[in-house]
């Protein structure tokens, strides 16, 4: 018997097989592909297990870090070092080195100087005829009060941990070195050498970059920051505007004398100002420092903070200051603890 046709359709066709093929062929499969459910691709079990172990380790580390940060306010010792003369802590002259407690003050006379610091992360030099009080010492906040005189601060801790309050404004360190002086009347002057300092009072904030100065007055708070190398006419006009003794032509002088880097001053006038002059300031600032895409005239004049902050980011030497979330806050505190521990 020749079964080749039955086997693989070679050889002479078997009529009976061919007839069965034809008859039964009508029962052949003609179905449609099923639509399988969308599969989520799961990683292999070993990967899942490894990820779970890693996540657990991160959680434990974070918890330990949080405990470590929260554990103590102690450990942040402000140490006093005598530089010249006999500085006084409370009523006790400092001969060599001493500790400044929270609430305590250090005072220098006309011939004495001192240095105040926490390890390597904050060094404050206190000039003659100054008085500085330690208001608060916590992992997240180190606050001094400069009641009179002059200090030079050199801060290498993360931003927004060191604060120096004056009678008319609060200097917030954003990572920098600067000098701050306050006279008997409470008028202050901030001069930034490196980095940035925020000068704040009552919700009003001036960001002062390196090379710029900013005055503060008891009645009006922080003024408008400006670069010391701006033209005398520019500085005179700004002084008149800030003190409220502005005369006709002062704004025109200020706008015409402004250079690109004086965009710093114009931006602060625009962000904090009111009235019809804002349009003139905006137009001049747009000439000197074009606003980024999406920052509109209407939005800026309306006082849209996001638009103003985006424009501020275009100014020479200005930092990007993102809003601080929980994770960023935790990280900042952790870094501070690590820095203080060194």
């Amino acid at each position, binding site marked *: 018997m020749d*079964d080749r046709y039955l*086997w693989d*359709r070679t050889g002479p066709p078997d009529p009976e097989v061919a007839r*069965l*093929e034809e*008859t039964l*062929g009508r*029962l*052949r499969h003609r179905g449609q592909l099923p639509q*399988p459910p969308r599969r989520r691709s799961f990683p292999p079990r070993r990967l899942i297990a490894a990820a779970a172990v890693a996540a657990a380790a991160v959680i434990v580390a974070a918890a330990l870090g949080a405990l470590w940060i929260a554990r103590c306010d102690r450990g942040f010792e402000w140490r006093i070092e005598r530089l010249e003369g006999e500085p006084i802590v409370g009523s006790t002259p400092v001969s060599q080195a001493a500790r400044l407690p929270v609430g305590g003050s250090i005072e220098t006379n006309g011939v004495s100087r001192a240095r105040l610091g926490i390890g390597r992360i904050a060094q404050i030099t206190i000039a003659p005829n100054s008085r500085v009080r330690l208001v608060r010492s916590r992992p997240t906040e180190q606050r001094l009060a400069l009641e009179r005189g002059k200090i030079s601060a050199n801060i290498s801790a993360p931003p927004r941990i060191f604060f120096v309050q004056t009678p008319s404004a609060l200097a917030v360190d954003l990572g920098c070195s600067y000098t701050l002086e306050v006279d008997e009347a409470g008028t202050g002057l901030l001069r930034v050498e490196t980095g940035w300092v925020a000068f704040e009072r009552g919700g009003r904030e001036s960001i002062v970059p390196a090379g710029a100065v900013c005055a503060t007055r008891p009645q009006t708070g922080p003024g408008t920051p400006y670069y010391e190398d701006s033209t005398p006419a520019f500085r005179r006009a700004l002084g008149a505007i800030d003190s409220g003794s502005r005369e006709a032509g002062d704004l025109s002088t200020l706008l015409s004398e402004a250079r690109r880097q004086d965009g710093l001053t114009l931006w602060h006038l625009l962000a904090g100002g009111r009235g019809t002059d804002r349009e003139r300031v905006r137009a001049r600032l747009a000439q000197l420092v074009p606003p980024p895409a999406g920052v509109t005239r209407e939005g800026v004049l309306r006082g849209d903070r996001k638009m103003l902050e985006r424009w501020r980011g275009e100014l020479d030497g200005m930092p990007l200051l993102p809003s601080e979330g929980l994770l960023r806050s935790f990280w900042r505190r952790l870094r501070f603890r690590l820095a203080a521990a060194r």
Partner: protein
Amino acid sequence: MTVGPDEASEETGWVEAARRGDRQAFERLYSRYAAMVHGILLARVPRIDVEDLVQEVFLTVFRRVGALRRPEAFPGWLAAIARNRATDHCRRLPKTEPLSEDSAGEDPAETEAREILSQIRALPEAYRETLVLRLVEGMTGPEIAARTGLTPGSVRVNLCRGMARLKEMLGRRQSHG
């Protein structure tokens, strides 16, 4: 028609891709194996249920292919799923005398096909699956061997002996009719 090593290699690639969730690879496997699954089921369960069961078998494959360790074992694995599904289905069927399907108004060729299929189903299991794959699904002996995982020799023997038995049964039916 023969099944060569290239085809087997190509198929291994499809299985590996299907294991990663590649729907196109799954479609290719379906195109190649749907007839085999249909034939395995048709040899065992009522025809009316076969299409639904084919769908169920491939959905099972889609869900479980990730657990298949050796892609080259796919054909035998798939055939086993189809056979097990057919067994489960028959076990769940009510134990009643099947009603004869009403053939009034039906195409005579369709009626004849159904009757021949019922004769094939009366054959021993080894013969009926091979004959359905050959005569209904149109697969050749080498294709049946490659797709089901049986040896070519077994398939050839099953085809010859099954065909002889079928001819004998059909001859008896004709002489009685």
